[in-house]
């Protein structure tokens, strides 16, 4: 169409369209190069580390937006508690009466468990500090599932820290700025979490796909290792997550694929806890972790041996619980050497030697007599 006076502008039409297309192509090339250079497959601290400043600003804005909603929600909850306090009190009394039965058995089982751990010389997980934070922003699309929480490096949160809430595992920290952290949800397409089935102890890999029900892949074991309703826990393999965090329950999807019905789907994720668990570096040194220590290395020095009393102490060891079998076992295993040397003191064994000799059938560790030690000194 021509409009008389506006005819000269027609000359602009063709170059403008082509010019814009050239700009679009240029931007596409730049975007493609940046996309290829920012692959998330090998998720590391650098993947999200360069977004700390942006996250800080975005989280503050979202915090401003969510604060009124939280205030209104808290007020509604307060009103709800006020009006339904009597009913709730009645229900809670019933629950307390039921739970008291389990309390004593729990304490008993915990003490027994502790004794077993000591008896078997198990290396238990160290206690992990936690930081509580509130989720202020969420991305829940199919391509990205992550959250911003209002706690960051100022609270000593680091890349890789697991994040849980009152129901179960939420995800892990992938980006940290001073006051804000970005949490990669277990449902994100790049999330891979080693898990285990609580019933059968079978291992699997939980793979996020952008939906609310991550897939279970590489399920190891037989056919019956996985059943509907089985509890899924973190296995701790790989050292990113501690072992035993509750994740969800196994379900078979309509496509026949085993999926995990996440515990965190049961309620909105609001407050979360960041576990300051980093990886295996928190545990003792690798050379100590990767070998089973010799019994003689972890035992206190045995008392002066009375040869005639060995038999009686060995027979008593089968009946006595707790620490007693460890001590008696040690005295019986080192009986041969103690017969030759009246007073023995076990010597810490070098790591290389210890790794190669771990069974009781091996020759006894080199013992140092108090007499020779005193003569040498």
């Amino acid at each position: 169409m021509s409009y008389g006076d506006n005819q000269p502008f027609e000359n602009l039409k063709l170059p403008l369209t082509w010019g814009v297309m050239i700009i679009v192509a240029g931007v596409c090339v730049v975007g493609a190069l940046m996309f290829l250079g920012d692959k998330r497959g090998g998720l590391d601290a650098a993947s999200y580390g360069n977004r700390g400043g942006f996250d800080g600003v975005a989280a503050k804005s979202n915090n401003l937006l969510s604060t009124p909603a939280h205030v209104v929600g808290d007020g509604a909850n307060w009103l709800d508690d006020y009006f339904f306090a009597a009913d709730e009190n009645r229900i809670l009394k019933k629950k307390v009466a039921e739970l008291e039965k389990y309390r004593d058995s729990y304490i008993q089982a915990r003490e027994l468990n502790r004794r077993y751990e000591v008896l078997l010389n198990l290396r238990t997980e160290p206690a992990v500090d936690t930081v509580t934070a509130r989720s202020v922003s969420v991305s829940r699309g199919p391509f990205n599932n992550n959250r911003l929480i209002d706690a960051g490096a100022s609270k000593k949160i680091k890349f890789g820290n697991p994040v849980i809430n009152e129901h179960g595992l939420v995800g892990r920290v992938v980006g940290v700025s001073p006051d804000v952290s970005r949490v990669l949800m277990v449902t994100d397409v790049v999330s891979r979490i080693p898990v285990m089935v609580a019933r059968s102890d079978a291992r699997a890999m939980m793979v996020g796909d952008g939906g609310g029900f991550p897939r279970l892949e590489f399920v190891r074991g037989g056919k019956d290792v996985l059943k509907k309703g089985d509890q899924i826990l973190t296995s701790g393999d790989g050292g990113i997550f501690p072992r035993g965090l509750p994740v969800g329950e196994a379900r078979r999807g309509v496509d026949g694929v085993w999926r995990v019905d996440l515990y965190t789907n049961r309620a909105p994720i609001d407050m979360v806890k960041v576990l300051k668990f980093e990886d295996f570096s928190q545990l003792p040194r690798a050379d100590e972790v990767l070998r089973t220590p010799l019994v003689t290395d972890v035992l206190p020095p045995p008392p002066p041996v009375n040869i005639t009393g060995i038999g009686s102490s060995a027979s008593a060891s089968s009946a006595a619980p707790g620490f007693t079998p460890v001590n008696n076992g040690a005295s019986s295993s080192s009986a041969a050497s103690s017969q030759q040397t009246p007073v023995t003191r076990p010597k810490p064994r070098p790591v290389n030697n210890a790794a190669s000799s771990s069974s009781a059938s091996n020759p006894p560790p080199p013992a140092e007599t108090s007499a020779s030690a005193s003569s040498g000194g």
Partner: protein
Amino acid sequence: MLQGRHRQNTTRTRRGNQNASRALRRARLAKAVFDKRAPRRTSGGRTIGPQDWLLYPALLCIVATFVLATDIPLPFGWDLPEPVWPMILAFSWPLIRPSYIAPFLLAGLGFFLDYFWGAPIGFYVLCLMAVYGVTLLIRSYIVGQDLWVVTVAYGLAVFLFFALGTILTVIDTGMVPRLISVFEQMLATGVLVFFVHALLERYLHADVRFN
């Protein structure tokens, strides 16, 4: 006196003729522009600058994305929807008119989404620019068509956006995202077609040079 009066009258006549010709030209232009069209809000003579159809809608998209990303616990386990707001701009801007500023602004919006939603840098830039480029190529087939044609074209553009997003996700992670979730977000973005209609209604014929 006579000469002066005559001179005065001549000047007045000339000025009158000039005014009349200007008015006639304006009337022709107005007839050409607004004939058989509903009156536009921008037809009052106000100039439509880039800030009106580029900057302000872009800022509104950012604000809308921020608001819907707020983590507000809703009853029954519901979540706020998460449509891709800049999608309406990637489709509307090339229809309104080709612009040198629009691709850069759209790329900025793409980078914003990449950072805000935690996508790999360039992911949403590529998806948005693909929609913008394709729509720019076929704009002459869409402009001036009925509303339902625009709606169908927008639906195809949304499909292109999410298909490309799915392919890029597979390239990036080696994992196909859950297609039901893709469809959900596609639906939420498709509902924004009403904003596309509003933008086109407001700005498509606001500048006659590009008709």
